């Protein structure tokens, strides 16, 4: 039960914060709300017994990506403070699309998974849990089963790095 309560709080916070991200009129606030969303999502990972992902979420998202965003915001010099022109004129279309999509997705999910329970991990010993799905297991998997994708991702990162430099360079 406690995890359900935790989930409820986290989900509520995440939803509200996410809503603010897409509705706030202040760009800097949006970035800060995003921090909240990302953090709660990280917490949700913990709930799902995925600590390593949670850590990565905090480190990379909040530590790196968000800083990038803030840089971006600063560099493009938007009005710090409220700005009425952040939304375009198709908000209604967007809203309807989003809600429609949500409806369809929820229907499908409820239809497909119904009230299927996640396996209760309470009974599993801490050691077993770590061995099965802990950081070590994840590391093993990355460097054995998923080695090729991992390398591909690294190349991708490199390409993105080069690309970003090429794009942003003043010449």
């Amino acid at each position, binding site marked *: 039960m406690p*995890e*359900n309560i935790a*989930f409820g709080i986290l*989900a509520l916070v995440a*939803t509200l914060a*996410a*809503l603010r*991200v*897409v509705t706030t009129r202040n*760009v800097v606030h*949006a*970035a800060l709300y*995003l921090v909240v*969303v990302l953090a709660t*999502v990280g917490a*949700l990972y913990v*709930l*799902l017994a*995925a600590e*390593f*992902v949670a850590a*990565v979420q905090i480190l990379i*998202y909040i530590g790196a*990506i968000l800083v*990038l*965003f803030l840089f*971006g915001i600063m560099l*493009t010099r*938007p009005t710090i403070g409220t700005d009425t022109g*952040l*939304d*375009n*004129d198709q908000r209604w279309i967007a*809203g309807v*699309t*989003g809600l429609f*999509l*949500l409806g369809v*997705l*929820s229907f499908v*999910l409820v239809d497909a*998974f119904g*009230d*299927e329970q*996640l396996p209760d*991990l309470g009974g599993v010993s801490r050691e077993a849990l770590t061995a*099965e*799905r802990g950081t070590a297991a*994840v590391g093993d*998997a990355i460097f054995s*089963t*998923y080695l090729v994708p991992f390398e591909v991702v690294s190349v*991708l*990162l490199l*390409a*993105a790095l080069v*690309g*970003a430099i090429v*794009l942003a360079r*003043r010449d």
Partner: protein
Amino acid sequence: MLVNQFLILGAVLFCIGVYGVLARRNGVLVLMSIELILNAVNINLVALGSLQGPEAAVAGQVFTLFVVTIAAAEVGVGLAIVLLIYRNRASVDLDEVDLMKG
């Protein structure tokens, strides 16, 4: 815990992200909305993974990591593009970016 708790939360975040992508005018904010979408996907990956047992759980986590990595790359390139647009047009307003209108 119901698996649907996570999945539906993912769906909600996803749809909020979609809304943001469609409704926001500021390039940076659109990128943020995309992050929301990616996070929604990540939640799904982890939740479905842990539903299927230990092996799948690991797979889900690994893929989540990949997504995070790719998200980082995407934000990097995306922001570079936004910067470039800003430099050329002195604005990050996507309504003005209609180069695809041939």
